[in-house]
């Protein structure tokens, strides 16, 4: 009887999941499989039915391209620097909001504003504020006497990557703050009170109690942010189109695929992006697991 019931339950479970699974097969699994397949062909986008299989040639073509390595370097640089800044800044703001201060609710609401703004809009807003002649930032810096004439933030090759990172930090720190804040609120108040009564200085309370207890929350937040940063497309594309200075791996892949119509090579580049993201994901999850295992040992 109960075996029968369990089987009926199992069937019901698959029926409830069927619409979702079908949707995922159509929009995720199938296109992914086709991308892998195309990456082994010499197909072009204008006539995708006419192609032949050419093995790993496309993969070699991509890793032999200097631009690809520039894109990879940009992507990694962007990911490491922006996520690092976001984590530190997010931790700081989360600790601030967690204090009993006036205007706490207001800050909590205000912090969501950059997060809700579309990437394209945020990019345009900052582009305008950073405009070399009329941007408010240059005007303020000039009136403070720090510079004589406006800095071309978005036109200068060595500054534009900094601008991309800066805008990304502005947009995504709220996400960090929310996740770290959720972690902070799970720390029992008694621990902190006990430490305070024992006269342990604030920095040590933070370093030896708060930070270790926050590690899982920060780990998850960093994982999500890193994977998101590795696929970044819109911000750099809107700010600098296909300029090599901030070209990311996603922009490179899309360029080959859509702009150059190279379905085969574009698919191979996409697959490299996929492998890159998968590799980093496995690496981070591995580090988190090791951490957890180390924490569980006596």
């Amino acid at each position, binding site marked *: 009887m109960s075996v029968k019931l369990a089987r009926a*339950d*199992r069937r*019901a*479970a698959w029926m*409830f*999941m069927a*619409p*979702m*699974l079908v949707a*995922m097969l159509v*929009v*995720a699994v199938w*296109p*992914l499989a086709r*991308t892998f397949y*195309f990456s082994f062909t010499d197909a072009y986008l204008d006539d995708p039915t006419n192609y032949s299989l050419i093995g790993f040639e496309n993969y070699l073509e991509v890793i032999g391209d200097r631009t690809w390595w520039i894109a990879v370097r940009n992507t990694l640089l962007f990911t490491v620097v922006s996520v690092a800044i976001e984590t530190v800044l997010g931790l700081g703001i989360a600790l*601030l909001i967690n204090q009993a201060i*006036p205007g706490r609710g*207001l*800050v909590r*609401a*205000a*912090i*969501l*504003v950059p997060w*809700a703004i*579309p*990437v*394209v809009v945020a*990019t*345009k*807003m900052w582009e*305008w*504020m950073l*405009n070399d*002649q*009329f941007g*408010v930032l240059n*005007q303020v810096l000039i009136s403070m006497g720090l510079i004589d004439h406006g800095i071309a933030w978005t036109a200068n090759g060595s500054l534009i990557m900094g601008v991309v990172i800066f805008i990304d930090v*502005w947009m995504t720190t709220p996400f960090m703050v929310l*996740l770290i804040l*959720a*972690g902070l609120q799970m720390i029992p108040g008694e621990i902190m009170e006990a430490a305070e009564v024992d006269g342990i200085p604030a920095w040590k309370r933070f370093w030896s109690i708060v930070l270790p207890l926050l590690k899982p*929350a920060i780990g*998850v937040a960093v994982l*999500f942010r890193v994977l998101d940063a590795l*696929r970044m*497309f819109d911000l750099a*594309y*809107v700010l600098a189109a296909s300029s090599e200075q901030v070209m990311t791996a*996603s922009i490179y*892949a*899309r360029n080959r695929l*859509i702009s150059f119509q190279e379905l085969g090579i*574009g*698919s191979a580049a*996409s697959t490299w992006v*996929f492998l890159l*993201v998968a590799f980093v*994901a496995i690496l981070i999850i591995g580090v988190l697991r090791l951490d957890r295992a180390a924490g569980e040992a006596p």
Partner: protein
Amino acid sequence: MTDAAVALPARRRRSSASYRLERRIKKGFLVVAVGLVLIYTLFPYYWAIVSSTKQGAALYRNTFLPAFDLTYYKALYENRIFLGSLVNSAFVASSTTALSLILGISAAYALGRIDFPQRRGVLMTILMISIFPQVVVLSGMFELINWLGLYNRPSALILTYLLATVPFTTWILTTFIREFPRELEEAAIIDGCSHFRILTKILLPLMGPSLASTGILAFILAWNEFLFALTFILTDENRTVPVAIGLMGGSSRYEYPFGQIMAASVTVTLPLIILVLIFQRRIVAGLTAGAVKG
């Protein structure tokens, strides 16, 4: 003996005074920090509003107050292509949200309430789909869209957006469903109630707030999407708002229509900000439910 009795209260008074001073300094420091955070997060949007209400030369002078000149807004609302892109975005984002909520709640019921061996595997697969880069499916998606004859149609975007929104709604709704006590349905199960009735008659009426916060997050995700919208739509009248704004530009770098872009930016962001501020608590719950328990 008397010495110590006199000295003690004096010292205590002094230490409490310095303690109070220390607390006041700390509080002042915190207030300054809060002010800085507020300026950092809010000023760019405020500045977009200010810039969008200035005209001509005033746009290039940096007074910090808005001029309330609505010329750019009028021009924007007479611009058929921009209005069209607003309609497209609203259509695409709300259809995507509705579809993902339906698919998500049904799957979440199975994943949150029914015990079956592959449950963990399914959840992990969903999580993996939600983190892989969209550019990876671009070639396959392009072919699929062409096959279905959807190229350059807004409905193509609804289909492709499911890639990001369905794993998201499924994941979050699963964590929400698990938070409801199982006792709710136990009586119904004993009475031989079907799963479909349990979901629609018992759980759904309770899930309004969860559906609202998940829906808002999915809506924002779809409203803000750029890569697919840029790739699968060819002509101006079928574009969504982010791409329309992204492609706005002047004939040269020096006559860039910043005032107009700012007016458009303020317009498309306002509904999102209002939604976010109204549903603040729910959104935070939704965002953290997905991540913290996962």
